[in-house]
């Protein structure tokens, strides 16, 4: 095997796998400390995620959100941008989806209503990212700072809108009125029922297909188009890209728009797919989770779908754990998810020096260089 191929295998598969296993090992130790049998806990977790059709539904429902935010983070990563603003972009994306629904005639065919609403989510998500993108490109304000600030702005704006403007009259919860039926994305259990397959009700809806299609589109965009090439070139070496005639500033703004638009699609899964109204905080955790998903998935759409599935399992299986085991509180579940993020995100390359020494010895790489 050539050195490059070996490196690709190490980076793409072996490292993430080792990282996840380390996280699980650390979780097992944690469980032992609180007198939980890790083996039984793992069984509960897997049963919760895949053991019955409702659980499977929830797993894929969470996965859908993580695919969107993972892709959002990954696209920005490819241009060398660290988009921490997925939370805010998802939140505002949901707002856009909902506003479009309320703005259109309620009698409109779903075939018009739903695509229009998806466009609303894309545009609003992008609009929330264009500001930080512009500030980074033309004013030199660091994207990490501005995107994280925009998260707070989004939260504040939404509280204002939800409690003062969009609030359903006579409602105590800050939520809008219900969307008309024709803006509801079909639930997977309803669709399957049409084919005579009976599964339990769950929030899983057709957004999962949208997520998979978008993942393919992102792959196509990044690796098969000029724009994608320009984004990747900027991310690899901005100076060289500029020298090659790529307008770096424009790329930064455009990339952030795409990234924000992708994050905005979380609003489709959550609002059009499940809650059927604009609610508060439907987005919490997915934007930040998307960073870990992108890191674990090595910024490749295929890897992101797999990593998103892992997070879907952790979310739904974790809920099952907290529900079934009285000595596992929901905070322990958060710790468990945190460990996965720690080992897959922060300590991403911990094993790399050892793996390199073991699998790609220096003599080998010297040969490769020669």
């Amino acid at each position: 095997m050539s050195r490059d191929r070996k490196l690709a295998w190490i980076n793409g598969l072996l490292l993430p796998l080792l990282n996840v296993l380390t996280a699980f090992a650390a979780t097992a130790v944690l469980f032992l400390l609180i007198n939980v049998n890790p083996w039984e806990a793992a069984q509960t977790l897997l049963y919760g995620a895949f053991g019955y059709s409702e659980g499977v539904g929830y797993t894929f429902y969470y996965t859908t959100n993580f695919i969107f935010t993972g892709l959002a983070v990954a696209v920005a990563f490819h241009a060398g941008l660290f988009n921490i603003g997925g939370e805010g972009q998802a939140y505002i994306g949901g707002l856009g989806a909902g506003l479009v629904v309320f703005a259109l005639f309620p009698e409109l065919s779903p075939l018009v209503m739903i695509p229009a609403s998806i466009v609303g989510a894309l545009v609003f998500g992008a609009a929330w990212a264009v500001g930080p993108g512009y500030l980074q490109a033309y004013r030199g304000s660091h994207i990490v700072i501005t995107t994280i600030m925009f998260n707070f702005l989004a939260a504040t704006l939404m509280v204002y809108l939800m409690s003062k403007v969009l609030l359903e009259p006579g409602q105590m919860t800050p939520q809008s009125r219900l969307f008309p039926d024709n803006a509801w994305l079909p639930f997977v259990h309803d669709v399957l029922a049409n084919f005579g397959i009976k599964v339990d009700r769950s929030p899983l809806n057709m957004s999962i297909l949208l997520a998979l299609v978008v993942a393919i589109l992102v792959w196509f965009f990044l690796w098969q188009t000029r724009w994608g090439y320009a984004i990747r070139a900027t991310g690899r070496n901005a100076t060289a890209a500029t020298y090659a005639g790529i307008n770096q500033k424009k790329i930064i703004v455009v990339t952030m728009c795409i990234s924000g638009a992708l994050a905005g699609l979380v609003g489709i899964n959550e609002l059009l797919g499940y809650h059927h109204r604009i609610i508060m905080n439907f987005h919490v955790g997915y934007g930040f989770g998307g960073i870990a998903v992108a890191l674990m998935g090595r910024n490749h759409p295929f890897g992101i779908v797999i990593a998103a599935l892992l997070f879907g399992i952790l979310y739904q299986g974790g809920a099952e754990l907290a529900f079934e085991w009285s000595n596992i509180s929901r905070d322990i579940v958060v710790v468990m998810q945190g460990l996965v993020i720690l080992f897959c995100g922060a300590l991403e390359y911990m094993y790399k020096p050892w793996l390199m020494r073991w699998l790609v010895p220096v003599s080998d790489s010297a040969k490769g260089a020669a």
Partner: protein
Amino acid sequence: MKKTAINKLVKGLTVALATGAVSMSALADIKPAVVYSDAGKFDKSFSEAVWNNGVKRFMDETGIEVKEAEPTNLAQVEQYMKRLAKRGHSPIVAVGFSQANAVAAAAKEYPDAQFTLIDMVVPEPNVQNVVFKEHEGSFLVGVLAAMKSDSDVIGFVGGMDIPLISRFGCGYEQGAKYQNADIKVIHNMTGSTPAAFGNPSKGAELTRSQMESGADVIFAAAGGTGNGVYQAAADAGKYAIGVDSNQNHLHPGTMLTSMVKRVGEAAYQSYSAAKDGSWAPGVQVMGLAEGGVDWALDEHNRGLVTQQMEARVNDVKAKIIAGEIVVHDYMSDNTCNY
């Protein structure tokens, strides 16, 4: 898990036989449950009050296990609610207005299960709704605050900026103005996300700025944020008013009173009623008349409240109960025009 259920049953039966007083059917019959708010069980506020004064009390008194669920997001609220109903748990207490949609969905799907929803109304035949008239209780502490204030400026620190919290502030202002038409009430909200219910340092900051503007009595309706408010008031030697639970003991000498909202009682009563077989659906409005809200007078604030103040507040309380004073509910029209 089956094994533990059998163990529990055996244990329950043993207890029943040993005491002889408890009927066996009661122990076997009800499988109560609770779904806490997504702020968590130990939120130093709402859910914790349900746990302390409702769930824990019921478990201690009856020995009946209450299954607890702690969701982390709204999708999980509905998921847990349906799981509990599916496994035959009933009544299921849903803590907080944000669970209304989940209760509505679960109640339709499981018509045999009984649900008790606190702070919100869902019109289903198997849902018991318990709502509180926070504005009435706030009115009373507003009257007391106006009497206690020397500067004729008082403050209100709310948690999250939502109508429910404005209802506290609006009732408080009405009470204060009822007592003293010239009094100035400074309103501040801690924040715009649920985190605003757990930010004591921001609460202290707002309190200090209100005190700089002259406020000498500050009412906090802000969950855990309130702790910062009470501390800042105590540090400056000014008065603070607690909320939800009786918080008079936190800083004796500067805690003027507390606006008590008995959410735990609602849970406890739901379980007890189910145990006696008297559980009934419908809407229960817990105002001053029903003892759902009240002002707290105990040994910790006795020294701060004169006989005259006590008489006045109780007089106003009687008038509200009698309907002579009608307190405007902020949430009836989302304005505080009274």
